């Protein structure tokens, strides 16, 4: 599981570099998110633009992250790819999270091609 984090004055951006958050990595994802957000303040924006596949275990892990950040910090999502967006829509979790179309200030190297 590879994630990178950018801590700003008002918010923290966490970018997932893996293409999958599934049953095989859900627990590790939660642990890495806990570590990545241990210091820092303000909302956490989770950039999922590289994630092509997220299953119910992955969804559960994202919800777990939102729960351990609350109530002090808010978890927001950004850059959902079509299949990932579908999982949030079908489970109605798209109404629970603030979802941004794209992550703010994604470096060129992380921007999707085309």
């Amino acid at each position, binding site marked *: 599981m590879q994630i990178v984090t950018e801590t700003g004055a008002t918010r923290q951006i966490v970018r997932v570099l893996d293409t*999958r958050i*599934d*049953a*095989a990595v859900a627990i590790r994802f939660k642990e890495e998110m806990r570590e990545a957000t241990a210091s820092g303040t303000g909302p956490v924006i989770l950039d999922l633009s590289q994630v092509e*596949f997220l*299953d*119910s*275990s992955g*969804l*559960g*892990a994202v*919800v*777990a992250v*939102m*729960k351990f950040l*609350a*109530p002090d910090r808010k978890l927001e999502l950004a850059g959902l790819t*079509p*299949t990932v967006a*579908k*999982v949030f829509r*079908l*489970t*109605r*979790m798209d*109404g*629970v999270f603030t979802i941004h179309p794209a992550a703010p200030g994604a470096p060129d190297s992380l921007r999707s091609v085309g």
Partner: protein
Amino acid sequence: MSTDRPSSPMDRPLCLTVESDPLAVRAALSRLMHGLTERGVPAAALGSVELVLAEVLNNVVEHAYVRGTGPIDIALTLKRRQIVCRVCDQGRRMPGDTLPEAAEIALDGPIKDLPEGGFGWALIHKLAEDIHYTRADQVNRLTFRIPIETAAG
């Protein structure tokens, strides 16, 4: 590969036996998606297909084989605009020998009460049709159909 019979690659079922382990499931999904692509299933439709199969296979790993590991047999057949699926395992039977319902998940409470699980069957019921479960000769057999979406949605 023979091209004498134009329908043969499409009709040939895609069969795979996978060990009940999350990483093995991930590898199996990749092979199945590759096989479906070869059989002409459009890339835009694969997301839902992979999602349903992932949920079904993860359920087998986490529940049927909760006390150990064992084989999972997968067979996919393309029929018209749908994928007919059969998944068999030799693990524990489903509670009450019946298919779990898609429970309505309560999302309107406080954040601390949000569920972290129970989404799997909700997704399967939303994306698959004709879901049947039988238990015979110590084998769990789940059959279902996944429509091939022609447009993104």
